[in-house]
Every structure is written in C-alpha cells, then in structure tokens.
C-alpha cells in the first residue's frame, strides 16, 4: 500500500488515487509535419523504465486534481511529488 501525499489534501492511501501514466509527454507543436511513425511515438511509445519513473496521478476520491510524482518502479519509493507545471526533479537511475 502506497501512502501518497496529495499536494492539496495531504497524506492519503493509494486506493484514493489513480495513476495516469508517464508524465512530461509533450504534444508536438508541428503536428502537420509528422509522419505516422512519429505520431505513433507520441501516442503509443513509452519509456517504461526499470528505475525512476516520472508519472501523473489524480486524487480521484479526494480533490480530483492532477499532480506529478517521481517514483522508483522496483522499490516503489516515492522520491518526489510536484505540481503540474513545476520543473521535473532529476534523480539517478
């Protein structure tokens, strides 16, 4: 069971939240120039790292607001929680 600190509500249990997958995927601005493979890379391809993953979470059964988390995918240790738009903290691994 993860204990997650919502930036607005404080510490809550994992089942109040939903994970929205990899964060910091930016929609290409020059989308009219992309070919199918480049679109596929944006829409479907993911880093899926064994190590530190930067991901989006939403506090579904609470304030329903989104935030970002840096979490280790082997130890499940939560390294940082930061608001959307804040710079991504850098971690090794």
């Amino acid at each position, binding site marked *: *069971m*993860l204990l997650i600190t919502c930036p607005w509500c404080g510490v809550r*249990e*994992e*089942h109040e939240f*939903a*994970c929205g*997958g990899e964060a910091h995927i930016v929609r290409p601005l020059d989308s009219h120039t992309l070919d*199918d*493979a480049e*679109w*596929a*890379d944006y*829409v*479907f*391809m*993911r*880093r*899926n*790292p*064994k190590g530190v*993953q930067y*991901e989006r979470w939403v506090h579904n059964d609470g304030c329903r607001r989104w935030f970002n988390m840096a*979490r280790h*995918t*082997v*130890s*499940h240790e939560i390294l940082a929680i930061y608001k959307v738009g804040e710079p991504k903290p850098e971690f090794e691994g």
Partner: protein
Amino acid sequence: MTKYSLLSLVRNAGRGHRDWREAWRSPEPKPSYDALIIGGGGHGLATAYYLASEHGLTNIAVLEKGWIGGGNTGRNTTIIRSNYLEDASSRLYDHAVDLWEGLSRELNFNVMFSQRGVMNLAHNEHDVRELRRRVHANQLNGVDAEWLWRDEVQAFCPVLNCDPAARYPILGATLQRRAGVARHDAVAWGYARGADRRGVDVVENCEVTGFIIRNGEVRGVETTRGEIRAPKIGVVTAGHSSVMATMAGLRLPIESHPLQALVSEPIKPILDTVVMSNAVHVYVSQSDKGELVIGAGADLYNSYAQRGSFPVIEETVRALVELFPFTSRLSMLRSWGGIVDICPDASPIISKTPVRGLYFNCGWGTGGFKATPGSGWVFAHTMARDEPHSLNAPFTIERFHSGALVAEHGAAAVAH
C-alpha cells in the same frame, strides 16, 4: 535422454528412484550460435523447441537470467482458452489450443492439459450483450463457444451463487468447453527438455546486459557470462521487454504492471471448471492438489517489483466470497505477483524490428500462458524465415503506426 514411459517409471521405481537423469543439460554458453533466444520462460523455450523441430535450427541457445520457468511461466493462473473477439486473435489463440491438445504426446512430458471448460460470467445487461456478441463472433470463426443463461450456469457450476438477489447477480455466461488449464511448470520443463534433446543449449543464470549492433544489424549480445555472437536474436522477456528494447535503441508501446494471484488451502474437489468474471474481477479454478487458484487484477501503476498492492487482493477476495459463499472461511496460503507487459490494444507484438536480425515477442499482457505453444510456433517461423507467419502477420510493431490495432480489452479479461 530417457524416454518417459510406464516402463521407465516401473524400472526407476524398482531402483528406488535414484537413477533419474536431469531433464536437460547445464551447458557453458558457446562463443557463437546460429540464433539466440533471450528469456527462458514458456514462450522462449517453445520458440527454441520449434526452431529446432520445425525449422532444423539446432545450433541455438536460450539465455535465461534466472532459472527456467521462474518468471511469469511459474506465476500465472494456468488458464487456456481462445474465445477472443477479433478474427486475427481468434486464429492465433485457437491455433495454440490445437497445439495444446497434442502437447503432452509431442513433448513426451505430461503438461496435465485438462479441458474442463472456461466460463465468463455476465452480471448486467451490458455484459450479456458484449459476451453474446463475442460468442457469435467465436462461432463465426469456428471457435468453440456457447451461451448459458442463469439456470444453465447454475446446473453447470452448482457452487456459484446464482441467487437473483446476490450482490453480483449472474444473468448468464459464455462457456468454452474446449478451454481449461495445464500445469504451468511442466510446460516450461517439457519444452526445455524437448529443446535440449534436439541440441539446443538452455543456459540459465546468464543475463543479457547489452546488444552488439553494427550498421543496423544485430551481431550478438553481451552477457554476465561473456559475449555471445549470433545473426538472429529473439527477445521473449515479457515484463522486461522495454528494458531490452531500450538496450537495442528501440521504443515499445508497452507498460509493465504487476498482476497478482493467490491460492487457498487445499480442499476436497468442489470446482471442476474455470470461472472468470470481468466485471467484479476474479477468476478461479481448483488445482489437482485441491487449492483454489485465484487470479486478481493488475495494479494500475508501472512496476518491476514482482509484488502487487494489497487493495487489489482485497477487492478480488471480496468478489470471490460473493460469487462462491463457501469460500468465506477458507484460508489463503500465499499470494504473489508477476510483471506483465501490456500493450495499448491488449494484443501481443510478435514482430521483426527496425534492427535486422532482431525480433521481439512481447506484449502478451495478462494472458500469455494460454498462447505458449502457438506463440513459440509462430515466432520460430518468423525468426527462421525472416517473415511472419500469416497467423502473426497482424501483430507487428508497425500496427501502432498504421492504426490497425487488434483491440481485445474485453476478451483479455483483466481490466487494464
């Protein structure tokens, strides 16, 4: 290599079972092979077996970082069925069931394939419509499938709570009588032994740490036991597929999630079929030892930890007790997790890659065990001929470029 038979059993029993030989050798890896398979699970070993038996490639090796069958092959709930919705998937999975039916004889190893039927329950009108649509699609594709209404469900599986006032009322169910379960470890061991007997080196405790790629062509791998060269390499590493792809400079549409299962204490025979429920998320069968084998859901965040979170187990057990009230006082013996590789369309990738000579077989997600023989069979064809078989031609990486996805979220049965 001893052929297993009644005679060999009697002979060895007479000697107190002291003379059984190991089922496969433990060879040192050679510096080069004609082909390498990375990953010694069921799919990888089946690939090696069919490369040797169907395509005459015997100077090959399977590289396994741990021990044979220690990953998802030994962690799943052993369910085998082929009631998928789309034409491409029903062909792929039904071909696997064809192979399952002759597998024990082919491998001279009892994989304990038991065609006890698999039911998928419908708990509301939407489930009924979706599942009947799937039955119709299956029947049009020649896949064994039938529809049971509530009274027929109750007659087929008396221990199910079919009371209309139940928390999760059962309106009906699909039934595939040809489906069932097998002994998962035996599948890995049988394929390892069969491949070994045909000259394949099954190398355990050998972790791949990098690829040797020159001019867009794969030349070999670096491993914890030295460099091994080969012009063809098949990657069959399930939950670790993205890790391998990253080493080769490729990107996959895959995310790795824990999928959990648990078993109860052994009880007398009570459940002679497999019951699955998408909507309330539990699937159950009874093993030959008498334990109830219970499949839970996937955790919704990425993980490589081979353990899942407790809320998932709690939800599963809650549903189990509602569907099978007799389980309420049953103790659970153990629970575990495996890391499954999930594709956005819940269908696998069995494909060539932009790197010549490098092939990926992954994305089987929450239901790879059922396809083990078929997956190995088509992947061996793809590697040997450098082109896919018609059965796996729709399952390329390029389908994510063209948009020709094979959407199977309904038939995959585990919500993700």
